[in-house]
C-alpha cells in the first residue's frame, strides 16, 4: 500500500532484528490504512448520493432529501403539498443516482480486471468490442423495431444481447490452441469494434428518420437519462456478483500480472482464468452498457487512480475501486444534468473533462510507474 509510513501500523508485534527497524513490519500492506480508506470513501459515497439526489432543477437540501428517502424506505407519510417533490426525489432522481453508483463501481472494477487480463495499461471495459456490439443491437432495435414485445426494455435487451454476441465473436476469433493470449485478445477486440462501428453506420444510413442518430449518441457517450427503478435490479445484481467474484480471484490476478510463464510456475492456470474473466467482464459490461450506454474513460482511469493511492495489489484495488468509481460517477452525472440545465451533457464528455486533468496531475505528482516509465 503506497501510504505514508505514519498511516501504517506494524503488521507484526515483534519487530525482527534488522538494520532498519522502523521500516520492518510495514510489508504486505496495512489493513488499518485500507480500512480507513474504505470507511472514508463509504461516507463520501453516502453523502454524495444524498447531495446528488437533492440537486437538480428543483434544489432540495440534503436534510430534507434524507427525510424523503427515509419516508420512502420506511413507508412513512408524506403530505400532499410535498408529493411532487417526493415524486421527483424517489421516482426520478434516486434510481438515477443509484444507477450512477452501480455503473461507476462496475466500470471501475471491470477496468481493473481487463487491464490485468490482457496485461495492458491502456485497456478499458470497451476494448474487447462490447460497447460497439451493444450499440449495433440498440440501433437495430430503434431502427427496425425488433423485440417490441419487451416494451420499454427492448432497447436494453437488444443492447445486452448484441453485447454478448459481440463478446462471443471476439472470443471465438481470438481463441487458439494456446488459449486466449493477451495481445491477440486486444487486437481482435479492436478490429471487431471497427467492424461493429461500420455496421452501425450502415444501419443509421438506412434508417428512415433521425431517431437512430440520437440513439447512437446515447450509446456512444452514455447517459443515465433513461434510469428508472425497473432498470436497477438486474444490473445491480450482476455488478455486485461480479465484484465479489473478481475479489475472490485477487491473488490470481496478481499472479497473472507477472506473466503467463511465471503464473504457470506459481500454479495458476492463466488460460482457464482468462477465459472465465472474459465471460465475467463481458456479462458485467454488457449489463451496464444496456442501461447507461458506453461511458468512456471511467474504466480506463479509475483503476490507475486507485493504484496510485493503494498500490497495485488486486485485493486492495478491487476493494477500493468500486467505492471510488461510484463516487466519481455520481458527481459526473450531477454535473452532466445541472451544468447546462435543462439540457443534459453526455457523460462521456464530463468523464473526460474532469478525469483527464486529474489523472495527469496525479500521475505526474506521485511518480506513478506503469510499465517501468
Amino acid at each position, binding site marked *: 500500500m503506497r501510504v505514508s509510513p505514519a498511516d501504517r501500523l506494524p*503488521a*507484526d508485534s515483534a519487530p*525482527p532484528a*534488522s*538494520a*532498519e527497524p522502523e*521500516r*520492518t513490519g*510495514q*510489508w*504486505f*500492506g496495512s489493513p488499518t490504512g485500507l480500512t480507513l480508506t474504505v470507511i472514508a470513501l463509504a461516507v463520501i459515497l453516502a453523502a454524495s448520493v444524498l447531495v446528488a439526489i437533492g440537486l437538480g432543477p428543483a434544489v432540495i437540501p440534503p436534510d430534507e432529501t434524507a427525510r424523503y428517502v427515509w419516508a420512502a424506505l420506511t413507508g412513512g407519510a408524506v403530505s400532499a403539498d410535498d408529493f411532487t417533490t417526493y415524486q421527483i426525489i424517489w421516482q426520478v432522481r434516486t434510481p438515477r443516482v443509484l444507477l450512477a453508483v452501480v455503473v461507476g463501481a462496475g466500470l471501475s472494477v471491470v477496468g481493473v480486471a481487463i*487491464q*490485468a487480463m490482457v*496485461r*495492458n*495499461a491502456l485497456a478499458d471495459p470497451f476494448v474487447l468490442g462490447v460497447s460497439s456490439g451493444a450499440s449495433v443491437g440498440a440501433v437495430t432495435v430503434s431502427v427496425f423495431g425488433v423485440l417490441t414485445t419487451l416494451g420499454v426494455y427492448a432497447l436494453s435487451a437488444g443492447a445486452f444481447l448484441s453485447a454478448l454476441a459481440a463478446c462471443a465473436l471476439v472470443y471465438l476469433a481470438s481463441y487458439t490452441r494456446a488459449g486466449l493470449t493477451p495481445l491477440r485478445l486486444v487486437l481482435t477486440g479492436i478490429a471487431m469494434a471497427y467492424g461493429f462501428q461500420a455496421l452501425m453506420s450502415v444501419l443509421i444510413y438506412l434508417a428512415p428518420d433521425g431517431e437512430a442518430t440520437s440513439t447512437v449518441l446515447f450509446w456512444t457517450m452514455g447517459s443515465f437519462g433513461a434510469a428508472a427503478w425497473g432498470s436497477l435490479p438486474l444490473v445491480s445484481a450482476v455488478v455486485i456478483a461480479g465484484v465479489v467474484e473478481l*475479489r*475472490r480471484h*485477487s*491473488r*490470481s490476478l*496478481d*499472479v497473472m*500480472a*507477472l*506473466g*503467463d*510463464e*511465471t503464473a*504457470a*510456475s*506459481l*500454479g*495458476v*492456470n492463466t488460460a482457464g482464468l482468462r477465459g472465465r474473466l472474459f465471460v465475467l467482464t463481458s456479462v458485467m459490461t454488457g449489463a451496464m452498457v444496456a442501461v447507461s450506454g458506453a461511458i468512456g474513460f471511467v474504466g480506463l482511469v479509475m483503476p490507475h487512480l486507485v*493504484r496510485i493511492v493503494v*498500490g*497495485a*495489489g488486486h*485485493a486492495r484495488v478491487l476493494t477500493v475501486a468500486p467505492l471510488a468509481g461510484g463516487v466519481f460517477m455520481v458527481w459526473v452525472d450531477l454535473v452532466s444534468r445541472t451544468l447546462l440545465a435543462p439540457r443534459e451533457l453526455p457523460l462521456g464528455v464530463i468523464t473526460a473533462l474532469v478525469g483527464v486533468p486529474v489523472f495527469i496531475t496525479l500521475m505526474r505528482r506521485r511518480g*506513478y*510507474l*506503469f*510499465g*517501468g516509465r
Partner: protein
Amino acid sequence: MDLRLDALSVVVNGRTLLRSLSLDVPGGRIVGLVGPNGSGKSTALRCVYRALRPTTGTVWIGGDDLATLTLRQGARTVAALAQENQTDLDFTVAEVVALGRTPHLRGNRPLSPGERDRCRRVMEQVDVLHLADRGVLALSGGERQRVLVARALVQEPSVLVLDEPTNHLDVRHQIELLSLLRRTGLTVLIVLHDLNLAAALCDLLGVLHDGSLTAYGTPREVLTTDLVRRVFGVEASVVSHPLTGDPQLLYSLSPSTTTERTFS
C-alpha cells in the same frame, strides 16, 4: 528430490524444438544446461515448470509423473525463474516475494506469521530486505532478478529451475547468487550462458545442440576444446582453475587460432 526428463520431445507448429531429451538430475545436485541460442534449453525448462506441455515424453518429479499433478501441486514442488518477467503493475518487492506462497494458499487467504517470517528471512538471504517497500518497476535489473529468486525460494520447492538467472547481474551478484544456490541444497536445473560459471557451479552439465543432448557429464568430461568448437563454433583453450581445479575456458576473438597465426 530427483528430477528426471524422460524422452521429452516438443514440436510446435511443425518445428521440432526438443528431440527426445533424457536427463537425470539427482536429488540435491545442480545440473546445468548449456548450448547455443535456440538449442532448446529454455524449451526443456518450460516443460518442467509447466509453461509448456511436452509433445511426447515425461517429466518425473520424485516418483510422480508431472503431468498427473495439478498446476498447484506441481508448483509446490517446482519453483522457477522464467526468462519472461515483465510486469506492468508496480507491486512492492514484499508483495512480489509474498506471491511465491501462492501455490500453498487457498484463494485469498493472507500469509500466516510464519510465512511472513520466511519471506523476511529469504529476502535477507538474497539481499533485498532493504527494498521491501520499494516498487518493483523502479528496481535495477540486478535487484529485480534477486527479488525473483527470493520469490522462487519462498515457494519452498524441492526442485528449482532457473533460466539464465545471472542475466543483468554484476559479477559480485552473479557469484553470490550461484553460491546461494549451492547452499540451498535443492535439486537445481539451470540454464547458463556463461560456460565458466556453469563449470564452476554445476555438478553435471548437459550440452544441447539443435534440440538434442550431445553431451552429459561432469564439467571436466563435457567441456573440451573439441565440443566447444563443434557445438558453439568457437575456439577455446581449456585450462584448470588454479584454486578450484574446475575447467575454465579461454576464448580467442578471431574465428580460429590458425587464422590468427597467419595474421601475426
